């Protein structure tokens, strides 16, 4: 196409050349002037188009995709603000990694259009360290975090300062089909603490599956982190050291965790698509005829149909060592204020409204995600919607946070890459993860 256009141009030029003498130069100048005029006019009108605005200041809240409840809360809070501000929502990508990528890109360019953001918990340290989010003052902190759970609140801090207000929290439990557990002769209830070995064995006996998130993505890191911490270990020894961090997963605990992964990967009870499974495919696999056990977030209970729901039982997330309690995963969304916002004071007010007990109750009931305020767990409606509320509450308290470090994206990628696929995990896996983490943080290897 391109070369064809050029060819034609050449030819017409040549023939014009043969017939007519060159035009006087002044005409070019005049034409050039006209072109500049038009260009300037166009540019001016384009800019003018952006600046016209009426009404109260608009706050833009970047939200992760949900079933529409964050947008609803934005409306509610806009109404409650009574003309002081209004909240518009902007949707982020579906996966947590993609959400972070967009926010980092915008905030690195000092985008003042991000007033509020729903931030996945593990990225807070990175954002705070890079001054992408605005810290809360001590007064604001007292006002905003009253009655909040210890775990989520700790995860919202970096170097003693509060950089976000926990909006919801999340944890996983072991979901099982009551019929399958009965068949396997397991006597379990909400308080039971099974080991992974027991769960896998029960599934093998009953020819059912154990569904876990094993795709190479953040959900797999969640599993690995909880396995290592349940075995009494940690991924990083001193996460606050930034680049000079010492990995701690090349340890007895790391090897025990690897054994569990390998045990499932070699078992007939693994899902056929283990190395590609995420929250959605495990949910489907659990609902299938040969579904037996699954670790997953509580949203699956709200999403289950009546028939399935009657057969679902729940117990604490499985442990690695018999007789020791597990450290279930910790997830959740924090509400942070963009560092470059033009309306920091209004944003703080909006955060207060969005994270209020009423808002959290609405969100919990509509989305199946857990509140961060203690009192909401005791609410009658919440208890009715989540018969396992007590177990969830306990799991959040005992949960294993992912390493809090500004280099979290590198850490999680390095772990995912070395631990994937599950069938290749072995005794040497924790060491290769540890080596990769150190090399990557010092720019000595690619990730």
């Amino acid at each position, binding site marked *: 196409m391109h070369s064809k256009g050029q060819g034609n141009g050449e030819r017409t030029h040549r023939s014009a050349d043969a017939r007519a003498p060159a035009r006087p*130069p002044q005409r070019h100048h005049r034409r050039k002037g006209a072109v500049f005029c038009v260009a300037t006019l166009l540019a001016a009108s384009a800019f003018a188009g952006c600046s016209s605005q009426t009404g109260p200041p608009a706050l833009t809240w970047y939200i992760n995709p949900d079933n529409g409840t964050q947008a609803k809360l934005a409306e509610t809070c806009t109404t409650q603000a009574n003309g002081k501000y209004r909240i518009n929502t902007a949707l982020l990508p579906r996966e947590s990694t993609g959400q972070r990528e967009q926010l980092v890109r915008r905030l690195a360019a000092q985008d003042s259009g991000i007033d509020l953001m729903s931030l996945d918990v593990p990225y807070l340290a990175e954002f705070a360290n890079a001054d992408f989010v605005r810290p809360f003052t001590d007064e604001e902190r007292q006002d905003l975090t009253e009655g909040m759970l210890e775990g989520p609140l700790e995860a919202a801090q970096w170097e003693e300062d509060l950089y976000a207000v926990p909006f919801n929290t999340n944890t996983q439990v072991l979901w099982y089909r009551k019929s399958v557990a009965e068949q396997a002769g397991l006597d379990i209830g909400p308080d039971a603490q099974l080991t992974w070995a027991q769960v896998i064995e029960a599934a093998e006996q009953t020819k059912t599956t154990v569904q876990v998130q094993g795709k190479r993505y953040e959900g797999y890191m969640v599993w690995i982190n909880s396995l290592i911490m349940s075995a009494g270990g940690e991924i990083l020894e001193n996460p606050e050291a930034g680049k000079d961090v010492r990995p701690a997963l090349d340890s007895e605990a790391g090897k025990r965790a690897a054994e569990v992964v390998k045990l499932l990967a070699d078992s007939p009870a693994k899902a056929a*698509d283990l190395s590609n499974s995420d929250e959605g495919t495990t949910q489907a696999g659990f609902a299938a005829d040969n579904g037996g056990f699954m670790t997953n977030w509580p949203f699956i209970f709200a999403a289950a149909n009546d028939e399935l729901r009657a057969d679902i039982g729940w117990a604490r997330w499985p442990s690695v060592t018999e007789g020791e309690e597990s450290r279930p995963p910790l997830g959740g969304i924090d509400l942070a204020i963009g560092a470059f916002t033009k309306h920091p004071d209004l944003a703080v007010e909006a955060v207060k409204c969005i994270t209020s007990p009423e808002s959290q109750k609405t969100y919990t009931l509509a989305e199946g995600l857990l509140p961060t305020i203690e009192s909401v767990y005791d609410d009658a409606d919440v208890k009715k919607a989540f018969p396992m509320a007590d177990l969830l509450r306990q799991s959040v308290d005992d949960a294993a946070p992912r390493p809090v470090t500004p280099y979290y994206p590198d850490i999680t990628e390095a772990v995912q890459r070395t631990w994937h696929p599950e069938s290749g995990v072995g005794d040497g896996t924790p060491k290769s993860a540890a080596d990769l983490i150190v090399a990557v943080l010092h*720019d000595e290897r*690619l990730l």
Partner: protein
Amino acid sequence: MTTTATPAPPAVRRGGASDRARSEQRLAWYLCAPAFVLMLVVTAYPMIQAVWLSLQSYRITDPESREFVWFQNYAVVLSDGLWWRDVAVTVLITIITVVVELIIGFALAMVMHRIIFGRGAVRTSILVPYGIITVVSAFAWQFAFAPDSGFINTLFGLENYDFFAQFGSSIAVICMSEIWKTTPFMSLLLLAGLAQVPEELQEAAKVDGATPWQRLWKVTIPNMKAAIMVALLFRTLDAYRIFDNVFIMTSGAQGTETVSFLAYRQMISRTAVGLGSAVSVLLFLTVVLIAVVFIKLFKVDLGRVRGDG
């Protein structure tokens, strides 16, 4: 410039010619200037910026530790097994897809060229895949091969075989999707080449008693060699930069990562701008190398395809 060098033509003519030449040259500059400036702004500037960044150790989320490290990033990339693995995977995908596309594309071009009935309908239906966004087609193929929602397993009685659980089958699906999507482009370029083969030559060969097979190899293909080479060049350049299919189907798991994906992960996911730029610059150089090899070694004449050469 040449006019000033020629020895002593008549004074008047010389002055006139050089005036005209100069004003023409000026006109040419005026005409080219907007495009030239635009090219500098949107192409040259980012390229220079990338080279500059590739000489630094720099993370967007940690601006304080930014430092100039000369060619260290390139040393890291080129000494890393992952880079070479990704290059090998990309080359593998490129070779498989381009060869298969050439064969199927040629067959389709023949069909489009020779067909008498329903010409429009056939041509349109052949071109449909090319009109679909790569990401969408990648999702379509992924869903088709997924063990839970896909129809392929049911169709071939594979039960719950997971195509994306190992290298071989993942690459196969990625290549199939790529081939399905871009063969129409190949066949379009080849169709243009077919249209250039003079009908008289075909008839002469027929009169001489050449079989259809002989006519294909001795008449058609030699006469459209330029079009074939250009089609190969375009597709090779495209295939080497494959990203979407891998991104959607495996996210680089099972060792299916390609060079573009590697660059994306260093640059966008890790925001390691220095290392990411080094990978991008190396990717760019590879693409340039492919183009140079095609043009110099295989003597691809880009002018030939436009039909007026």
